[in-house]
């Protein structure tokens, strides 16, 4: 290492620098690292995050005939006896994949706190322990630190209320999500080209004004400055700086960047997912899972339906239906559904009682989440709410129960601990938790 450094310096000093040599220097090393990181496919998780609190009583646990039920009808799914909303007809064709948790009962009806709770398993303390998002936890457990692509991707998040709920917390930025699509996340009328641009990694392309030869020399010179600085100042920070640059350069120069270019997909397939940010985001999620990214989340917003709930939920369901069903078809076609666990959830459900504006308000007491795909025994609903939908009558399921179940499906030991920012070791999923073993395949 030192020898090669000296020789490069010597070349520079002697004015004999060859750009092909320096290219091969840094690129060669990176290519080798990328090669070494190719392993057999691992388990992945795709989180479909419903920002705003989805009206699960109008999707997964309908109450037809009751005054709380609203106008939607139930339809059969491919799983005997399992019924869902008529506005999710394509997902209904995947009934045997779905485990609907109808007994969710959680503690928070506030957007920020509920988001934090569902994504970390914990309530936010006033700047106390910085809990990691479930994506960061999975990144740490299942991710390959040397992989070409980051181990946690967040597509079109709306971090409006609770930025920390999307972050790595005490696990540190190594497990922070690589975020794409955020700048169009609130644009409901984004045009196709805007969506394509939004789903690319920011600043991934080298500026056009810089030619390849200069760019390569810059990186070599930078590497020398990094090594000089770190040599007198050992420690994590300088290492992390060098590692981030390595990974960024690897991403720029590898096939990694092509993953984010959706134009290589067939138009017919892209249409099937839906030409909207969520649909195309789900397509990107499939491409990322194909490359062994262990955790990808795709956000769909506008679920905060305090007024005109039924018009909005119908539209949102249609968007969700096309994207999610295509995702499952696509994963299945590629043999990836068995190793990919899909989790669908928001921060809470909505009031069974319909308000005067034909809306539903925040309701954490009784609602649903859905697990599907790899590691999940589908075709069933677990838990039961009362006839009016207001209380859970069977198998009450807490946030921690649900997260522990997800971990089991992913093959993660949820009792394992990580050191936290306060020194105390913290479990991946804290006690008390009671995973729903009957849905784990």
């Amino acid at each position, binding site marked *: 290492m030192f020898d090669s450094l000296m020789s490069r310096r010597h070349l520079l000093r002697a004015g004999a620098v060859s750009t092909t040599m320096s290219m091969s220097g840094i690129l060669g090393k990176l290519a080798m690292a990328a090669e070494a990181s190719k392993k057999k496919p691992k388990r992945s998780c795709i989180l479909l995050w419903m920002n705003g609190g989805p009206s699960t009583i109008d999707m997964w646990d309908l109450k037809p005939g009751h005054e709380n039920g609203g106008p939607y009808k139930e339809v059969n799914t491919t799983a005997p006896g399992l019924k869902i909303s008529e506005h999710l007809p394509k997902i209904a064709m995947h009934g045997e994949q779905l485990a609907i948790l109808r007994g969710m009962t959680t503690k928070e009806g506030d957007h920020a706190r509920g988001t934090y709770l569902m994504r970390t398993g914990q309530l936010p303390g006033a700047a106390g322990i910085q809990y990691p998002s479930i994506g960061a936890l999975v990144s740490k457990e299942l991710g390959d630190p040397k992989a070409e692509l980051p181990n946690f991707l967040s597509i079109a998040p709306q971090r409006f209320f609770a930025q920390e709920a999307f*972050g790595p917390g005490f696990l540190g930025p190594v497990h922070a999500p690589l975020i794409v699509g955020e700048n169009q996340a609130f644009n409901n009328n984004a045009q196709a080209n805007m969506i394509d641009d939004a789903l690319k990694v920011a600043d991934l392309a080298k500026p056009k004004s810089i030619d390849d030869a200069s760019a390569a020399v*810059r990186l070599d010179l*930078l590497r020398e400055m990094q090594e000089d600085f770190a040599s007198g100042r050992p420690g*994590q920070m300088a290492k992390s700086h060098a590692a981030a640059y390595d990974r960024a350069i690897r991403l720029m120069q590898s096939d990694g960047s092509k993953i984010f270019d959706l134009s290589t997909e067939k138009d017919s397939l892209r249409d099937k997912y839906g030409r909207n940010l969520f649909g195309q985001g789900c397509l990107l999620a499939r491409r990322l899972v194909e490359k062994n990214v262990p955790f990808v989340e795709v956000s769909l917003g506008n679920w905060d339906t305090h007024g005109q709930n039924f018009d909005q939920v119908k539209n949102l369901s249609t968007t969700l239906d096309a994207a999610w069903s295509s995702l499952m078809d696509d994963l299945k076609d590629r043999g990836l559904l068995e190793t990919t666990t899909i989790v669908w959830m928001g921060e809470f459900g909505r009031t069974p009682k319909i308000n005067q504006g034909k809306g539903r308000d925040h309701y954490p007491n009784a609602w649903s989440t859905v697990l599907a795909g790899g590691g999940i025994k589908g075709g069933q609903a677990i838990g039961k709410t009362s006839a009016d939908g207001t209380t859970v009558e069977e198998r009450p399921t807490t946030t921690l129960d649900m997260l522990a179940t997800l971990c089991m499906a992913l093959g993660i030991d949820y009792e394992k601990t990580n050191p936290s920012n306060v020194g105390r070791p913290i479990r991946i999923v804290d006690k008390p938790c009671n995973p729903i073993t009957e849905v784990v395949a």
Partner: protein
Amino acid sequence: MLASLRLAAALAVVTIPATVFAADATPKVDPADAIAAIIDKHLSADWAARGVKPAAQTDDAEFVRRVYLDLIGRVPKAPETRDFIDDTNPRKRAALVEKLLTLPGHAGHFAAVTRAAWLPQTTTNFQLANAGFQFENWLRMRYRDNTPADEVVRRILTVPFTVNAQNAMNRFVQPMGNDPDNNTLVGFYQANEARAENLGSSVSRLFVGVRLECAQCHDHPFARYTREQFWEFAAFFAEMSPLPANRPSFVGPLEPQADKNRITITNTEKRVVARFFDGSSPEWSADRSPRQELAAWLTNPANPYFAQNAVNRMWAHFFGFGIQDPVDEPGDNNPPSHPQLLEDLGKAFVDAKFDNRALMRGITRSQAYQLSSKMTHPSQSDPKRFAKMSLKGLTPAQLFDSMVAATGHREPGFMRQNQFNFNQQPNNPRSAFLNRFASNEKATEANTTILQALMLMNGQFITDVTSIEKGEVLGAIVDVPGWDTKQRITALFVTTFARNPSPEELEKFTSYVDRGGATNDKKKALADVFWVLLNSPEFLFNH
């Protein structure tokens, strides 16, 4: 005899120059010098006892960069660096600190850092953003005026308000009285969701240095705090919660505070009365509210917790690690690295009447603060011995302000207003940096992310400031007539690193530029050098 001496001394004041008066029998020691002396005494004794060989003293270049970053939140501009290095005043380091303390950037930087520590939720929760802005503005005025630390906390803790708890999900804190600052100060309570338990844990953590919230749900696993103690402390904020229904009159006369100092422990029937966690209780009276009692106890000079916590947090600001570290986790498993130093500094801070600037002056005058970050002996490797300076990451604002200082980027005033790291404004590079570099990590554990690296390598801002056409400082350095390449390289080093290049660096980069870089274009080669320096850890860290 004594009387005549006094008389002589009094006469001396009139007739003898003041410098001699300073050598009076009870010399008036600058509190900052006293603080520096305490630090030097304890640390040098500790080093000697442990066989630690401290790192070399900083040269002027390393010092000037560090002290600009720590006190005003950006690196020095090239002329500022040169002025300092060329200054022959033997007390120039203290003089520089004095100058920096008067700059608006000082109050701005400390206000931002304090807000991020006290109300981090206001930078991530959009609903609280405005409360955070206002609170930071208020803090800026406090740092500008050097308001004593005890007074700042008393103002926060005693602001008069009422709580509207009709909406259980979203309690509203309504300020009372005519002081416009009250509108701002209630933001502290609003950001803590107007919940007694949140305020109890925040106040205990921020102003006492004790993290009680683990005891919110169960007895503290390591320290001695029990669940009951947590709720007794939270009970000082019991007025945040709706009061129970009026008691029937036959129960007897009410206590002086009625129920305003009592709280029910969540998920229990148990009601506890406010009590300090050292076990003492206020003498309750009808005319002093529980919050007033708490503020008085907390900021009483005889209370060692308050001063030691304030000193420790200030220490951590400058050194990256607290003497007690984490700063809010005291306990048997986490003893302070230098308990006597912490105690003596706490006393000195009380003696200095909680004067923040005296503390800043004292710390920056100490030998330890002026040590290099470059490790020269294995005994310096434990950061808690303070035998070399620890590396610190830059806050997002520090980074962007340093970018501006180093590159000469001209930032329109309205873009500077963007302080909120969530709401990204299009085409505002400050906003883009604040978003991309937002972090809640400890300064000494700052990690770099892939997206940050990509932005620093390929982003529009960096591309512009390292282009010969658009970069202000780069364009000037490239175009200065009559300079040779060595002078241009040197100027690039001074503006980014606040130091001259080493002979080896000078030779390497000069040779690179003189042969035209990779594309046979000397100007472009200079741009390459500038890009490399701006992406280097030496620029991106405080060292």
